[in-house]
């Protein structure tokens, strides 16, 4: 076992883990943060996207030990009641159907908006390249990000 210490959604965490524990399993199984999903499990689909030290990463391809000392934000860290501008916009613009990819989509979009408050449609599509959705055809996801960007700029 190895000890991992990190900050998750503002809370200091310390756990003993097997070194092979992936960050996504630490979040879901040890911390109960099941908003972060495991989709393809092969680093393609992005359903497991969280922020590590302020950047989007695929947590199925990061060892918990690699996150030692880091600050991690999951979808639950944006808001627990769905009130974050991105969460509301995904609902309003029908940016989801089954919802499986949504937490990862929103975390990637949040990463983008933190660096670029007013992205073009092209920039949004490029930023979401690592997140796959099999329901929406992406169109309403892009609209949701645009809507959230406007809301956040006016806030």
């Amino acid at each position, binding site marked *: 076992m190895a000890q991992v210490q990190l900050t998750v959604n503002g809370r200091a965490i310390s756990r003993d883990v097997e*070194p*092979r524990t992936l960050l996504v399993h630490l979040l879901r199984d040890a911390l109960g943060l099941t908003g972060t999903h495991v989709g393809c499990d092969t680093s393609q689909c992005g359903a497991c996207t969280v922020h590590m030290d302020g950047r989007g*990463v695929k947590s199925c391809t990061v060892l918990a030990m690699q996150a030692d*000392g880091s600050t991690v934000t999951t979808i639950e860290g944006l808001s627990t009641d769905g009130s974050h501008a991105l969460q509301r916009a995904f609902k309003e613009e029908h940016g989801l159907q089954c919802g499986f990819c949504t937490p990862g989509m929103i975390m990637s979009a949040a990463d983008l908006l933190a660096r670029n408050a007013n992205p073009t449609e092209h920039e949004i599509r490029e930023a979401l390249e*690592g997140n796959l959705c099999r329901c929406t055809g992406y169109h309403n996801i892009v609209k949701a990000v645009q809507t959230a960007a406007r809301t956040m700029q006016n806030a």
Partner: protein
Amino acid sequence: MYPAQFQYHRATSVQHALDLMAQHGDDAKVLAGGHSLLPVMKLRFATPAHLIDIGRVSGLSGISESGGTIVIGATTRHADVASSALIKAKAPLLAEVAGHIGDPLIRNMGTIGGSVAHADPSADLPAAMMALGATMELTGKGGSRQVSADQFFVDVFQTALGSTELLTAIRIPASSGACAYEKNPDPASGYAIVGIAVQLTTSGGKVSSARVAMTGLGPKPMRLAAVEAALAAGADAASAAAKAADGIAFIDDARGNASYKANLARVYTKRAIARAMK
């Protein structure tokens, strides 16, 4: 999917990493961003007993310039390479190539040294390393040695790195904006089916020399010598690119037959040269 069990070691310095590598020998693997290694460990294609994490070694990451040479630490992330003002100004080809690796999330974890050391025959950076005339700094117990990109890539997943050596830095001579990378990405993985990196040196509006390198279509990246010679002799994009498959023995495989690959090489070489000349 979990990888098989292993012991985890966090290296605190290059020396510490080298000590751990010497101690554990072939049972150990170096871990940088983990974006090539962890996927193969999850599939149990690799089952190292020890992982030596170099991700936090101070001094192994970062971008600087010294006397016209850009020095990039091995654990510098693709995203930081792609967005670096210094690299955009002094090695724009590298910024372009790094910005086309996988997707933004992959680029936030993957490192330049990890990609180069892994030497995937479909990876993007190896072609850029050759076109830019990069030099790899390989550090072992006895000190460091410099190996040119042309000598570094040996075969599929094989490089000049010794088993107890670490790739510590990459050095690139400053270069101009007369460059381009044209890639045909595999629709599923994003890796290059073919990628052509072109770096031209111009004087008085004319090409005085050229470095053209190809990834994806063979066991390792390669320079396209006939294309380079044609460009240096004043050929235009179309006639230089017509030589892109000259002297190369492409093989038939799942990605296509030899004549298809030769055609891909010519088409993407032409596109890359034409854009580099603009």
